[in-house]
């Protein structure tokens, strides 16, 4: 256990120093999947105490790196220890897509790059491909796809600018929350597009089931 505890936050999450917050949340989710209490992967591998320690450390890493201010402070401390070089420092040329809306940094190019990456993940993921064969798509199906891709709703909000209430409503099939059917359709469409799916295809399958 000692070795894991000695790792810096980047090593712990298995990410490079210059990654975006999108990748930080994804790495955190992946690691959480390995270590959470009911995880099949690490079943019987750790004592309860060890598991709690690892999870606490992961939480600390996530909370530090996801917060721009805390992250640059942490980077600074790594620079002082000689682990991180000035040029690799996070602010310089980091592909940023902030969790907290900041139009200056989340450029269209970044969103496009993420979308392309997600598209590749969609086409190679059997679970997602299976879901997409269904005649009707439900909110829970979209959520399942989103979970498979490791994308948080906050990121989708960031990319689509659709309000959180509506994004949640889509996943919970609470259609009455959208101002109209037209709005609902376009929300579902941009939601789907933002995670690399075919927007029209998903929107029609989603709305099919509520046509009456």
């Amino acid at each position, binding site marked *: 256990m000692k*070795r894991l505890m000695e790792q810096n936050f980047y090593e712990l999450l298995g990410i490079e120093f210059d990654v975006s917050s999108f990748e930080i949340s994804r790495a955190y989710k*992946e690691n959480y999947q*390995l270590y959470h209490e009911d995880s099949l*992967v*690490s*079943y*019987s591998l*750790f004592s309860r105490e060890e598991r709690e320690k690892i999870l606490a450390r992961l939480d600390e890493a996530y909370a530090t790196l996801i917060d721009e201010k805390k992250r640059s402070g942490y980077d600074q401390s790594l620079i002082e220890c000689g682990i991180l070089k000035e040029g690799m420092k996070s602010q310089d040329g980091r592909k940023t897509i902030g969790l907290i809306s900041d139009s200056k940094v989340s450029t269209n190019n970044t969103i496009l790059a993420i979308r392309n*990456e997600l598209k590749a993940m969609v086409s190679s993921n*059997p679970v997602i491909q299976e879901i997409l064969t269904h005649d009707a798509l439900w909110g829970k199906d979209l959520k399942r796809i989103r979970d498979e891709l490791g994308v948080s709703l906050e990121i989708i909000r960031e990319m689509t600018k659709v309000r959180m209430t509506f994004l949640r409503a889509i996943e919970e099939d609470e259609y009455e929350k959208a101002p109209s059917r037209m709005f609902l359709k376009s929300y579902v469409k941009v939601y789907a597009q933002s995670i690399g799916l075919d927007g029209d295809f998903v929107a029609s399958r989603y709305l099919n089931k509520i046509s009456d």
Partner: protein
Amino acid sequence: MAQIWPIGGGKGGTGKSFLTGNIGILLARQRFKTLLIDADLGAANLHTIIGLSHPDRSLSDFINKKFSTLEETVLQTPIPNLFLISGASNKLDIANLAYEQKMKMLRAISRLDYDYILLDLSAGTSFNTIDFFTLSDSGIFVCCPEPTSIENFYRLIRSVYIRKIRQILKAHQFRKLAEEAEAGNPNTVINPEYLLNALKEIDLEKGHMIERILQAFQFKLVLNQIRKQDNSKIGILICKIIEKHLGLKIQFMGNVGFDERVHDELCKKEPFVEKYPFSQATIDLKALTKSIVGVTHGQGELPAFTLSDVNTLTG
């Protein structure tokens, strides 16, 4: 020289014999001269899986010196190019072999003239099972996506590595070193990486030597009985966490889908891959067979397992 693949797993019922039998059939159908050895001496039933009801000779006849050579215990099977040494025996004591007997057996096995030899091992962490892994430095672990199976798999993995480290230490007469390392940290008994690090602190050179021997291990993991609702990445994640926490490299070989019809075919004593050549399970088994052939023939060898692979896969 024959390629020898021990196939084992921590828990019973994970499908070791099913995989051994069916991969054996697929290899034989590709015209590789293949021998299956049922080393699950206490509970042998590989013969049933390939459709041989009453084997008239078995491995125990060699162990008991009824036959002087191992070749004499080989049985023909209904499938061309496929041969079997059955493990069926009614003797009680045969399940517990002495280390020397296993060495003798493995030496005899390695002299046999086949393309592939698959060894079906018993469940659990008995020395019978562990020693076949440590002696051949390679093998396939079969595991199901269930807590019980995964728990026993981790136990088996640790036992294999600890046993290997002890064997190396003993062979080089530094048992004292191992004892010292264990005494320094009670965790070393369960964690190969702790033990290795402790050894390095005591004697860097010898620690490195053991590390090199351990890195030569070529262990693979197969996840069997994967159902639709299971996470298909779990095998990759298991290998990732083993590398991270036990410091051991195990390569994930693939999933084999769950198929209800396996049960019926076992009851009918008919080989599954022959009866359902286009089922998901058979397609998965064919992929495994292909990677076994790839590994041993050096063509398209499976790339060494790395963390960056995991990241792109789980991405």
